[in-house]
């Protein structure tokens, strides 16, 4: 009843083409943004902001990045973790070389480094595709992983081999992890994620996004229609790696505070791939759903049983998480290949016609 579009007539092409054509959707989005920007910072405690919301947003951004490549362009990538790492290390190098420039500038700039590396490893994509390309991205993963350990220049010849985030300020507030105010860090991460999601949505609904989707659906047909494959695929690699790079920089500078190369290993890549699969291939909102599910599941498993008086050992929690994630991937692929995003869409459709089934 609340969610019904009766009476909302579209009188211009502009309103017909809108991303949120229904008024309730626009209001809903406004409410979500209001909660995210106002309610959570004001009423949320440090645990919610620091341990749940910040990493959730950062992983959502990485999932959007991978979704652009895998969901929209159909190129399977197993190197997401490494591209995140490139962003993080680039940001670290830049901010230690030029300490007076605002850190937020470098966070965005590090995305360009990641994009360049992504394009480099995307070059074989014209010649090879499918599983073969997945192996090429895996090559990127292992090579970059090795660089993060073996090239001491990247971590400024630290004896620990890890990158330590220096203290950085913005408007006179300490914003870098781990000592920055959680609320301030949260707001910065949130703003970056919201803006970048908005940009991604615009790219996807525009000409470039159409080209990506044409390549995904049938690359030969796309080529016959006059879409040049290599620039299209490379642009997908570039944009995707840009998003991954920024999220990697955010991960280290606004959440961990320090990181070793371990953070960006192949398991991280898999983790983000799972977010995309479960959330929904080819859906922006799905990236948020997937990140929420994969990231929050272990937290729930850790705290809920002990609240109910059934303490589970932390090792068992980890094993159970693995098993649940594994079975969930299979379940979703079988039952709903478009993931949680599709379920969300179905729910909205049902609401629209409720209480009558047609």
């Amino acid at each position: 009843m609340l969610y019904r579009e009766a009476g909302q007539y579209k009188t211009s092409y502009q309103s017909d083409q809108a991303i949120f054509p229904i008024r309730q959707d626009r209001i809903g989005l406004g409410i979500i943004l209001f909660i995210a920007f106002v309610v959570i910072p004001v009423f949320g405690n440090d645990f919610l902001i620091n341990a749940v919301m910040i990493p959730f947003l950062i992983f959502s951004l990485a999932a959007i990045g991978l979704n652009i490549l895998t969901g929209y362009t159909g190129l399977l990538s197993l190197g997401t973790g490494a591209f995140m790492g490139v962003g993080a290390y680039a940001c670290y190098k830049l901010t230690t070389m030029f300490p007076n420039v605002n850190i937020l500038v470098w966070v965005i700039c590090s995305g360009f480094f990641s994009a360049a590396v992504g394009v480099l490893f995307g070059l074989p994509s014209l010649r090879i595709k499918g599983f073969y390309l997945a192996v090429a991205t895996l090559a990127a993963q292992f090579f970059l992983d090795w660089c993060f350990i073996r090239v001491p220049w990247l971590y400024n010849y630290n004896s620990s081999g890890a990158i330590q985030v220096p203290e950085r300020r913005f408007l006179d507030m300490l914003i870098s992890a781990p000592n920055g105010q959680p609320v301030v860090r949260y707001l910065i991460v949130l703003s970056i994620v919201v803006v970048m999601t908005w940009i991604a949505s615009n790219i996807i609904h525009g000409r470039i996004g159409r080209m990506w989707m044409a390549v995904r659906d049938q690359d030969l047909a796309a080529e016959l229609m006059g879409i040049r494959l290599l620039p299209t695929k490379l642009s997908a690699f570039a944009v995707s790696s840009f998003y991954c790079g920024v999220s990697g920089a955010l991960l280290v500078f606004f959440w961990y505070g320090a990181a070793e190369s371990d953070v960006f290993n192949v398991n991280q890549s898999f983790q983000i791939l799972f977010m995309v699969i479960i959330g929904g291939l080819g859906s922006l909102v799905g990236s948020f759903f997937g990140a929420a599910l994969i990231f929050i599941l272990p937290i729930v498993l850790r705290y809920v049983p002990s609240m109910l008086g059934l303490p589970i050992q932390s090792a068992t929690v980890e094993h159970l998480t693995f098993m649940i994630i594994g079975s969930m991937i299979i379940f979703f692929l079988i039952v709903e290949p478009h993931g949680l995003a599709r379920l969300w869409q179905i729910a909205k459709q049902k609401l629209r016609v409720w209480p009558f089934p047609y």
Partner: protein
Amino acid sequence: MDILYKIFIDPFMQMGGAPDLLIQVLWEGLVGGVLYALIALGFVLIFKASGVFNFAQGIMVVFAALTLVGLYEKGVPAFLALALTVGVMLLLAYSVERIVLKPLVNQPDIILFMATFGLTYFLIGLGELIFGGSPKQMIASQLYLPKGSIDIPMFGGSVMLQKIDIAAAIIASLMVAGLALFFQYTRIGRALRAVADSHKAALSVGISLEQIWVIVWFAAGIVALATGIMWGARSEVSFALQIIALKALPVLILGGFTSIPGAIVGGLIIGVGEKIGEFYWGPLLGNGIESWLAYMIALAFLLFRPQGLFGEKIIERI
């Protein structure tokens, strides 16, 4: 000039100067290659017969080895444990077919590939839950696998061969020969190849997909068990092995996804190339290049011959 000398001349001087060392490195590479080839063989079997790129092959190796050792530790005699593990692999093949593959018949390849990701994670969790995550000793002597090593004097030095490695090579070749014959000359083998070409067409000429898939996953399970035993006997049984399974991917690329000989040759090339590269050129780059050298070899190769050494060329039509 100095750097050119270090890259192009010095390593060969070293090789010429100490031929026994070169042969030792070659041998180590060959043995590593045999084990990569075995893992790749499991991939090829499943890919050939079901068109599924089975990412879970690596974890199946770990799972099989863990089950064997775990059962032995629970007090089951070694050979009974072996038989029971074979049973477990059959059960696994059956349940994979029932739960994962059957509902996904005729889906795009990439979906099936991702489903095996799910299977991988499930098996990691299950294995750790049942047997614990700590590394275990493989029961090599209880299975009458040889121990110790032979020294062969050569070029003024000596080359050391581990007996277990020789056994691994022999078992691997027997298994490969058996599988090749099976694929080429039996009815089931032909049916397997038909299924690989197209699920739909195979179903329509009356081939039972269910039966074929159980058979082939079971065969891959047996290969995984053999690999697990051999690899476990060389080092130990732990979940770290699954990273090694990722090494099988460049092997596959080199050999082609559908070719059993390709898996073997690719395995040997990668194994030898990796060891030689690490030993003679590794110090120039700061060691540890083993972790990505195989991928780079495969990637470079892909650009010239995308279908692999023995793979079928895919011709696309509209």
